[in-house]
């Protein structure tokens, strides 16, 4: 959604406020979930999304306004947060809000000394270490880094690299998609 005016007391005088809400549909996971949002995990993910996008969007161009990002998970099969970030990147680009760079996110893990990129749900549930990385590919800067479960320090670099590569591959895909869409839109508008 594009820029929205309003938001009284929390308005920041020199930049835009980014507000994120994350919710999962009840049918998204294997067993039907009761509460789509309001539990702690949703709150945490929304917070992380907000943090990532505050870093990536050029908020100084929109003082005293608010940008809302709503994400809804329709089907969860591992890598929820990453999918949200990628989707939100595309949405923000489509809305025309200027960003520093694409934000690409990917998860990575380790299975017996082999780093794996983009874990799916059974791989996540297996209990191995899981690293989530949100990257701005051009500068290589990390907007968000999160690790759960045990990982030996020596392995950290390998896993980080795997995630970084996956993000770059994703960046290529996202870039392609955006350019394609732009081409379509200009063709349609041009007529």
């Amino acid at each position, binding site marked *: 959604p594009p820029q929205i005016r309003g938001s009284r007391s929390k308005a920041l005088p020199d930049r835009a406020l980014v507000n994120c809400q994350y919710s999962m549909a009840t049918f998204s996971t294997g067993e039907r979930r009761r509460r789509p949002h309001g539990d*702690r*995990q949703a*709150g*945490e993910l929304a*917070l*992380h999304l907000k*943090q*990532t996008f*505050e*870093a990536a969007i050029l908020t100084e161009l929109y003082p005293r306004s608010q940008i809302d990002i709503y994400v809804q998970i329709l089907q969860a099969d591992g890598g929820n947060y990453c999918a949200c970030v990628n989707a939100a990147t595309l949405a923000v680009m489509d809305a025309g809000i200027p960003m520093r760079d694409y934000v690409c996110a990917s998860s990575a893990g380790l299975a017996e000394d082999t780093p794996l990129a983009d874990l799916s749900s059974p791989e996540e549930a297996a*209990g191995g270490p899981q*690293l989530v990385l949100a990257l*701005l590919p051009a*500068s*290589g*800067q*990390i*907007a*968000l*880094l*999160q*690790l*759960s*479960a*045990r*990982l*030996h*320090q*020596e392995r*950290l*670099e390998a896993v*980080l690299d795997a995630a*970084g590569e996956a993000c770059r591959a994703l960046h290529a895909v996202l870039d392609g998609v955006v350019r394609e869409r732009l081409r379509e839109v200009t063709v349609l508008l041009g007529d």
Partner: protein
Amino acid sequence: MKATPLSNCERRFLLRAIEERKRLDGRQCYDYRNVRISFGADYGCCIVELGKTRVLAQVSCELVPPKPNRPTEGILFFNLELSPMAAPGFEPGRQSELLVKLNRLIERCLRNSKCVDTESLCIIAGEKVWQIRLDLHLLNHDGNIIDAASIAGIVALCHFRRPDVSVQGEEVTVYTPEERDPVPLSIHHMPVCVSFAFFQQGTYLLVDPSECEERVMDGLLVIAMNKHREICTIQSSGGIMLVKDQVLRCSKITAVKVAEITELIQKALENDQKVRKEGGKFGFAESIPNQKITAFKIERAAIDTNNVEEQAEEIIAKADPPSEVFAKPILHTPGTAQIGEGIENSWGDLEESEREEAAEEEGEIEAAAFECQKMETEDTSTMSETKKDEPIVLSDSEEEEVIILEPQEVPKKTRTQTNSKQENTSKKAFNKRRKKKRAAY
């Protein structure tokens, strides 16, 4: 209550000090504050002090049926609470962002790292398991809640003893502490969080930020590690952009710090164990010194004062001499005095049609005059003096009544007013009106 904001001067001062690699309390960039661990009389209760930040941890257990999708595992429940006791900015019952963040961090650090063996908490598969509940309360906030909370959590879990249980067929007997000694939890490893604060887009980094440093920081990176150098959790927050080798460097620093802290924890646990076994006194009452009036003291910190004298002299020499002081009060009439003279009112003719040339009191620092003090009161300063024989043309503003002191040209604060008969009020009348005005309040 809202927390007191940090002034710009303080912010600038802190940032400049950090650029020069100095911290307010004299620590180095990678130094931790003093960690003190004290135990309560019950098993599973401890207080951790990291500098002035204090966290209280309490572990308790109860028998419950297990979760349906994990019938052979016990349940762990973590809860961190921020009360207004910790800082005036915290409000009870309101879920703030910080609370969610801290809670999730503690959960991930202690639960996902599997530091507590949950299988051993199972008594009868599918029917009865132990539910271990860890409650953390923040008692004082002076920065770096996460580290203190994680240390408190893991120490409390290590210290806790659960009642012994025996199973005979279908029957479960829970023994009280008198019958059989309570059993400690089986803990695989001790994850400890270390926080790094970043400043100036990642150029400077500090370990264990204090509260003021937290307020000016750009972002925070938390790494939880155990002494076997396994990373349990990494979390970056605050919207900073990191680079990969910064993260790797931080993880190396963490390894060092965690080793030190784990040693401290072990020593504290052993001490407590020893004291209890020897039948000595233990508990919080012992750890708070009672000859002192306050139980909250700061250890001495060595400060480098070598250059202070030279620097101070330098500063004084370069500074401008203080400006001239207006010395003499001007005595107009007995009982009134005025120090300094104000400048003319630059608001133009607001309400009066006449322009007065008398000096202005606007923006004057209090004169010693008694009248002036009374008149000064509220906001605006449509000041004008009146010369004696001139009728004041009134404005229609409903500001307060003007009291004109009579014949002398005493400059006074007056307000535009709504009656027009001014000249030559005698002092008596003036007093009367003054009293009336006072009574009006």
